[in-house]
């Protein structure tokens, strides 16, 4: 098991958001976290990464407990985040985003480098000298994915992978994720386009009001459309 989350409980001050969320991710697998807005998906991701400390529960990554580790150490252990809203550094150029964080954390024989990211997203190469705040939303998302990839993570987490993107850019992101999956990258993705996620992912977890409401395979989710209506509002 690459990631084992057990009975995670997280609160923001007096407001509890997660009530015992558990999640398993196997190496090489693509998993999703599904649910309506405000149900606790981002908080789950933030708790895994240590950005918001969980009050109870445990997180084990590659067999090591990490719920009390600082977030920078968790990241260096090999978890990379493509955050909601991209969070591109406005005062770093495209190339600097890729150079500053380039590191072979998973010890891959063929690591992601800035040049390989430029092959994946040729548009970034064209704009490599532009500052982060000069990019379109789609370019920022490509850069956020590239910035995460150059750390060569064991686990890549995308929070709202295609939110707010134009349809063509969205397709480019889906193609990129399919390619990463083909290369054996373990991925946890949050997104609203369930039909695409069913095609892309192996397993799904639906979160409803801070609790796991359902978990299963793509085939099971595809076959049970009442889940889509009940938990995802589709």
């Amino acid at each position, binding site marked *: 098991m690459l990631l084992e989350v057990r009975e995670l409980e997280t609160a923001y001050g007096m407001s509890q958001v997660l009530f015992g969320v558990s999640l398993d991710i196997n190496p090489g697998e693509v998993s999703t976290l599904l649910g309506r807005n405000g149900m606790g998906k981002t908080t789950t991701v933030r708790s895994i990464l240590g950005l918001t400390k969980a009050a109870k529960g445990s997180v084990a990554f590659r067999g090591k407990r990490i719920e009390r580790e600082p977030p920078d150490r968790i*990241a260096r252990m090999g978890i990379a985040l493509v955050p909601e809203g991209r969070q591109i550094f406005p005062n770093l150029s495209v190339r600097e985003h890729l150079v500053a964080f380039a590191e072979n954390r998973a010890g891959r024989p063929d690591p992601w480098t800035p040049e390989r990211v430029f092959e994946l997203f040729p548009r970034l190469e064209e704009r490599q000298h532009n500052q982060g705040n000069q990019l379109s939303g789609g370019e920022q998302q490509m850069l956020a994915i590239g910035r995460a990839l150059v750390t060569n993570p064991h686990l890549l987490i995308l929070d709202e992978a295609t939110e707010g993107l134009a349809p063509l850019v969205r397709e480019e992101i889906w193609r990129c994720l399919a390619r990463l999956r083909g290369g054996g990258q373990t991925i946890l993705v949050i997104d609203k386009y369930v039909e695409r996620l069913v095609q892309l992912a192996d397993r799904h977890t639906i979160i409803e009001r801070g609790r796991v409401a359902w978990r299963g395979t793509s085939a099971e989710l595809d076959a049970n459309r009442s889940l889509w209506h009940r938990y995802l509002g589709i």
Partner: protein
Amino acid sequence: MSGILFLEQTLNSLQFGLMLFLLAAGLTLVFGIMDMINLAHGSLYMIGAYLMATLAEATGSFWVALPLALVATALVGAALEVSLLRRLYERDHLTQVLATFAVILIANEVVRMIWGNQSLMLNPPAGLTGPVTLPGGMQYASYRLLIIGVGAAVAVCLYLLVTRTRMGMLVRAGASNREMAVAMGVNIRRLFTIVFALGAALCALAGAMLGPILAVQVGMGENILILAFVVIVIGGIGSIRGAFVGALLVGLVDTMGRALLPIAFAKLFSPPVASNLGPSVSSILIYVLMAAVLFLRPQGLFPARG
């Protein structure tokens, strides 16, 4: 006003502005990355000047004492950061202001206990005590030219460090979005200790270079600290480029104001009134400049957070 006076005051502005930049560079990064208001920054400037004066006396050489004073002050800064300031990052600004104000008081008393109340003498390096003749026949203090040269060289080195190195990229990333930098695996605390030590060394450099011109005395850091804060507000918090431009602007407005306003007022008022009014109005000019920048660009001229 004669051309020579104007040139002389321009050089003085440059010299003052570059020394302000040395102080403001560390301050702006500390504020930008950690959102930490450190009033004790001026105390590091004072400690640097005292260490420089003491080491110059002990070694008999300005040039031997300078790197020793820089390293010693950097170590004092790192120790201060690790022992005290690190505990204040998560606290609110008022707590930070109160705690670092306490550090000013403690530093002043410790300096008094060690060195006494008397100001220390720090002589310029041998061979740089007299004036030199510049092109055009103007006489200018050679030591002040050295300050300009050192300040400009450090500004270039800092620019290269921040814009061309990986550490500089991480510092800029941390200044614009600390949480994201941490999520990318940046050990922001270690980075901050390094930045803080570097800022302390720059304070020491400013203190050491200004020591032969100004008095090395208790409390010397407080007045210049206020100017350094003005500089980073004008330049944009967290921005080295902003600190550089802001420092040169403040240096220019302050020095030119002090030199030119009395001359201008002399044409309007009686000599005693003009001589009193000139420095008073010129000291206000800096804050007028800051207010104008805040009105037009509340984030400063070159905000790190874009």
